[in-house]
């Protein structure tokens, strides 16, 4: 039974992973990512990590992938990408070679080594209690400081996202054009005495 669960989940996980990297359309990549995340969640359940499986589905498949799809739709980049074109000569074979080295190294470590380390005595799951209770107890005792730091991290991420999304008014610059004069202020109306010709422009800045 466990073997069947593992086999089916592994096939879903790998199919989703290859779908992510081989799809031409970013929307298809995001949907393949959902398949991978669900497969991982099933594997979590198979290994008695019930709480993490739920969080995986809610946070990853629910929030993160939706955020991805939202950005794809918002930017309108849901068109196909030409996968055959190679902008950097020799980069793709080098990347695949690097992948083979990484994968070969990981599998070699796996084959040649055995798992040492004693079964835990302190953090062992209680036979009577549930998985969530164990996790919560450990989270609020041993890892309390990391938990609090995590909240600071989330606040920083929220503030950073707001600052990134806000943008600046009248700051449309064509990035393809080389920047000729770095000393020239980008923000309009910074210093009127600096440049007299700018006063000919209508109030409200540049178009």
């Amino acid at each position, binding site marked *: 039974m*466990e*073997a069947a669960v593992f086999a089916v989940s592994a096939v879903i*996980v790998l199919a989703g*992973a*290859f779908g*992510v*990297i081989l*799809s031409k359309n*970013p929307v298809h*990549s*995001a949907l393949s*990512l959902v398949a991978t995340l669900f497969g*991982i969640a099933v594997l979590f359940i198979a*290994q008695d*990590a019930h709480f*993490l499986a739920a*969080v995986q589905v809610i*946070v*990853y498949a629910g*929030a*993160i992938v939706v955020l*991805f799809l939202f*950005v*794809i739709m918002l*930017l309108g*980049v849901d068109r196909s*990408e030409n996968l055959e074109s190679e*902008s*950097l000569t020799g980069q793709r074979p*080098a*990347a695949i070679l*690097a*992948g*083979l080295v*990484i*994968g070969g190294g*990981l*599998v070699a470590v*796996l*084959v040649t080594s055995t*798992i040492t*380390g*004693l*079964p*835990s005595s302190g*953090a062992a799951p209680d036979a009577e209690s549930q998985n969530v209770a164990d*996790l919560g107890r450990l*989270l609020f005792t041993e*890892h309390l400081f990391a938990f609090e730091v995590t909240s600071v*991290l*989330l606040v920083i*991420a929220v503030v*950073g*996202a707001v600052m*990134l*999304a806000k*943008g600046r008014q009248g700051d*449309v*610059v064509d*990035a393809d054009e080389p920047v000729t004069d770095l000393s020239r202020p980008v923000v309009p109306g910074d210093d009127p005495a600096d440049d007299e010709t700018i006063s000919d422009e209508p109030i409200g800045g540049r178009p």
Partner: protein
Amino acid sequence: MIAVASTVSTSWYLGLGAILFTVGAVGLLVRRNPLVMFMCVELMLNAVNLTFVTFAHELDDVGGQVVVFFVLVVAAAEVVVGLGIIVAIFRRRPGATADDLSLMKG
């Protein structure tokens, strides 16, 4: 690596994690769309999460699952900031790929 067919040994899970990590790494190197590259990072994070949970199960230690919990939180924060940056880039130059972002090249 070759285990008895009826029972799933720990190394199968670890092998799946290794393959998943490799697929994510290759995708990150090959693809040029920033959004897809970001999804490949998520694949790699999930591979590591699977490995953590496998070891937690093997060694009877819930600590591994706590680490996965933190990885999830960091991944969520990372996605928020990363997608914010991607939106800011795409707003200035639509259709940009990772190759076009060479403004800081020396």
